[in-house]
């Protein structure tokens, strides 16, 4: 078997040329056909060098083996371009929609923090109001003894009323 590590310059040149060989013929090719595609120097070398000759034969054989694949290459359907362009537009629409939601998602932590703060402040305020009301209702019975009920005339009004009656009499 060809040892690539111990190739000579001529072998290297032949192998390099071999990689550039292109045979457009769809039929079976022989090593001879491949040799014809090489430069005169490389051809002469390949005829002398057994390893290079073997490489040329392998090249032809591999090419012939793979030939059936060239006749069965996948081809895009007639609607492929339309499908691609439709998919692009659909993706763009989706990204636009997602853009709105992305903004919402981006602002979400701030909104949550703001709502939490408002909730805390609101509940603190509500609790204070409730506590104040509670304190007032606890103190009410004692104070009510000394305070007039709703709608009761003030003492001063009673006094003024009494004095005006006296004047009239």
């Amino acid at each position, binding site marked *: 078997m060809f040892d690539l590590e111990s190739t000579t310059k001529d072998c290297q040149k032949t192998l*390099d040329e071999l990689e550039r060989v292109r045979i457009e013929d769809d039929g079976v090719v022989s090593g001879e056909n491949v040799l014809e595609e090489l430069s005169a120097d490389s051809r002469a070398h390949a005829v002398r060098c057994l390893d290079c000759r073997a490489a040329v034969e392998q090249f032809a054989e591999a090419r012939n083996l793979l030939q059936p694949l060239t006749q069965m290459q996948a081809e895009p359907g007639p609607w492929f371009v339309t499908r*691609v362009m439709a998919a*692009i537009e659909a993706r763009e629409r989706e990204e636009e929609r997602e853009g709105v939601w992305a903004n919402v998602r981006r602002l979400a932590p701030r909104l949550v923090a703001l709502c939490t703060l408002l909730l805390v402040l609101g509940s603190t305020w509500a609790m204070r109001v409730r506590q104040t009301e509670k304190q007032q209702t606890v103190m009410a019975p004692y104070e009510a003894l000394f305070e007039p009920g709703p709608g009761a005339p003030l003492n001063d009004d009673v006094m003024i009323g009494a004095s005006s009656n006296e004047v009239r009499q």
Partner: protein
Amino acid sequence: MAKPASQEPGRKSRVEDDRELVRRAQKDDKAAFEELVKRHQSRVFAVAGGILRNREDVEDIGQQVFLKAYFSLKRFDQRAAFSTWLYKITVNECWDLLRKRKVRPLVFEAEFSDEQARQYDGMEEKADGVPDVSERMALRQEVEELMECLEERDRMMLVMKEVQGFSVEEIAEILDINGNTVKVRLFRARQRITERVKRRNAAGV
């Protein structure tokens, strides 16, 4: 058969046309991108087909490749040819798919859709002496089985070189490896499959 860009006449002007189309597509010109899809769809299919072998997978990957290309186009600096960049995406997408599945598809029944089988049937009517679909599929299966002895990467290189007509330099660029490595691996891959054929023939299989 799809040939690589380097094999076609007027490659330079084609690359220049691609550059202009890419520039326009980068400015959100969808018609320009559509033109790029039309130009490169066959080659993308050829590359993906060489790796995946399953028609449906090739279609899906083809679409995915162009979607990815479209949405990454603004980051593409045009230092490499658009085609090379596109084939790189194709190869990577195929590898990702194979990695996800972790197995190489060996079943060939689903290889061709009914529509494609009909297309090939039609071809058979036109060209006498060409083997029919089942014969071709059997041949292909035989070749694929022969290549089983190769590493996936070597198999892919060999298909790219011998079937799709890429040059060593193009393969090296697409696969991000040294040109000499490509040559050595191609050489060894050929050696391995021809040895296998010899062993098979000797065993009378």
